[in-house]
């Protein structure tokens, strides 16, 4: 919607679409200078941290999965990690590998959803993937097929694609059979080919010329691209455990948002997600993903937030390749889960949700009940960067018409694949020019 004329202009949109959740965006431009950027999250709060109090620690994976239907495995894995940390338990290697396979399924499903259905339409001037299909049906069908393969992994390993039922603290209820897992290999080979085609496809899009200044934070895990475990590292030298990072991180409550803003203590904002993971871990990508990144001229660090779609596509190649590797090496664990004896204490778990670092911290009593919980999703951590990015994007695009500028702002928000349902714990766009 556009109103106003001459030097004073107001642009507003009632809801940024193609993100998960509800909120709004206000951009104020005065005399050609962006003065105010405010991301308002009005997704109603659901109080998960309060609901967890007095619940069994064993219930945490199922309860916290309900924070987000797009990345339930991320919640389940961080919850399991936090409880196991509190109880001093480490799962054995085969259970860990099965968790990584399940998590690859979620990465494939979520990245294919974002790249093809939520983000690509912006680059091609389409309202949505349905319109995109009228221009390039084969592309949309390719994306849907990749997504389906991710969901298939989640069904085989997790028992269900949305809110998997097979995850428990300590491991799984039942380890899938060799045959069930082996049946994933063929669809994964096709998905890997399609993921490579995806990198080529998105690398051909036109990208606004903008670069951010980011402090990157992600997990790092020696010898492997981080997903389900690792230490928390940053581009400016942080190297700590999940628990150590939870100590460093502070959250602020601002009036306009039902999502808390997370920063590193000392008011340092940071970026988590594909750009951060890639910048800090590109050397750990398998050869096939590195070659795809090189062919897409990505470089070792990507600072253009719009090119996050290329990084996501490269991660899609990685996730398909990694899932295939895990499928081919699969041996069922001797027991599907290790026992987790209750003990009083606190523990933290951090994993890489498709959209960024997700950490949980719980305090448990000696009966295995949760006495307090803290959950910090990626979008809470990225919120401040989304605003500063928007300021930069708008400042560099003031020559666009109101309609085009509004769309550009929406696209800039979607660069982060924000999950507002998670963070509220997002979107009207209003641009005011005077």
């Amino acid at each position, binding site marked *: 919607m556009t109103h106003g004329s001459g030097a004073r202009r107001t642009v507003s949109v009632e809801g940024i679409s193609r993100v998960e959740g509800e909120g709004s965006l206000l951009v104020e431009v005065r005399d050609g200078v962006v003065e105010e950027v405010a991301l308002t999250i009005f997704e109603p709060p*659901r109080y998960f941290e309060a609901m967890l109090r007095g619940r069994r620690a064993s219930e945490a994976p199922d309860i916290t999965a309900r924070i*987000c239907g797009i990345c339930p495995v991320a919640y389940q894995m961080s919850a399991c990690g936090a409880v196991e940390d509190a*109880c001093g338990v480490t799962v054995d290697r085969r259970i860990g590998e099965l968790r990584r396979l399940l998590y690859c399924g979620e990465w494939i499903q979520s990245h294919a959803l974002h790249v093809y259905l939520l983000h690509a339409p912006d680059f091609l001037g389409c309202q949505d993937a*349905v319109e995109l299909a009228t221009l390039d049906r084969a592309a949309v069908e390719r994306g849907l097929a990749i997504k389906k393969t991710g969901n298939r992994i989640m069904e085989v390993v997790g028992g269900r694609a949305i809110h998997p039922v097979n995850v428990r603290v300590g491991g799984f*209820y039942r380890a899938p059979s060799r045959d069930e897992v082996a049946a994933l290999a063929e669809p994964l080979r096709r998905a890997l080919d399609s993921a490579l085609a995806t990198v080529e496809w998105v690398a051909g899009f036109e990208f606004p010329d903008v670069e951010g200044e980011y402090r990157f934070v992600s997990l790092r895990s020696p010898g492997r691209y981080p997903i389900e475990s690792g230490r928390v590292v940053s581009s400016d030298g942080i190297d700590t455990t999940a628990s150590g990072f939870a100590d460093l991180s502070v959250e602020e409550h601002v*009036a306009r948002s039902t999502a808390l803003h997370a920063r590193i203590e000392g008011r340092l904002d940071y970026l988590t997600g594909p750009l951060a993971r890639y910048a800090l871990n590109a050397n750990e990508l398998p050869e096939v993903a590195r070659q795809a990144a090189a062919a897409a001229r990505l470089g070792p660090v990507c600072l253009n937030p719009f090119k996050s779609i290329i990084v996501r596509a490269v991660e899609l190649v990685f996730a398909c390749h990694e899932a295939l590797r895990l499928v081919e090496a699969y041996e069922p664990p001797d027991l599907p889960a290790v026992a987790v004896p209750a003990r009083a204490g606190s523990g933290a778990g951090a994993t890489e949700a498709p959209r960024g670092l997700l950490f949980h911290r719980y305090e448990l009593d000696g009966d*295995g009940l949760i006495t307090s919980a803290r959950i910090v999703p990626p979008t809470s951590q990225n919120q401040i960067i989304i605003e500063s990015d928007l300021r930069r994007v708008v400042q560099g695009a003031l020559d666009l018409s109101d309609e085009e500028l509004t769309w550009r702002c929406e696209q800039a928000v979607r660069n982060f694949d924000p999950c507002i349902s998670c963070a509220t714990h997002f979107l009207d766009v209003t641009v005011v020019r005077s």
Partner: protein
Amino acid sequence: MTVDLRPTLAVWKFASCDGCQLSILDCEDELLALAGAVHIASFTEMSRARVEGPYDLSLVEGSITTAEDAQRIREVRESSRRLITIGACATAGGIQALRNFAQGGEYARAIYAHPEYISSLSTSTPISAHVQVDLELNGCPIDRRQLLEVIVAELVGRRPVIPGHTVCQQCKVRGTVCLLVAKGIPCLGPVTRAGCGALCPAIDRGCFGCFGPSEGANPRALAQQLLDGGMTPADASRLFATFYSGNPVFGDQAQTLARSGKAGGSGDASEVAGAEEPT
């Protein structure tokens, strides 16, 4: 210009996790065909395009937890010829209905430094508590095959085939050996609505009730059996009070068990996970 005669579909979100509307996008094989058969007129998670109502069919996800949403659902109802709720949140208040049992303001104070910034109701209520609902689809999350069945039934104007029987009966159809009887694993299958495909018992996990109560469920009898099997009242109460505490069939049973637990001492367990269930 040709006139678009396809029925219009709108998808709405209230307090929820997005998982049930994701079920639509998870119909990978059917999505483009669906988008051909109906005009997806308003679906914020999928599209920038938004066509003004009225709409032939509205799918509503999420529960009502704010005064603004209580008003918005009335507007959605007024603009919809048929309104179907999808999922546990829209149908029963969802997991966030656990706040209905908490002291006022306790939840907001537990999380937010400035609870005064938050305008949220003290309850999470289903859509049917606010407006007339034409059909309710259960599940946390809904089953996408059931969703397709409902949409297809709406399109051709017939009643959808959605069973009201139990997970327990689905287990018999699948040939899953009864966990409750054979292994003593606590299971809500005898009182939980079918629709998931009896997924959990097939992986040696007791049903945890994510499709809500079945028609004619007798939770009291099952609660007694759980207690007889050695479960503490507090743990049995938690089992009934997860995704469908906002439905009185499960919610009242959970409350009754919680009260008896307080009277009879609190439960304890020596393990977070692993001991009570065979692996």
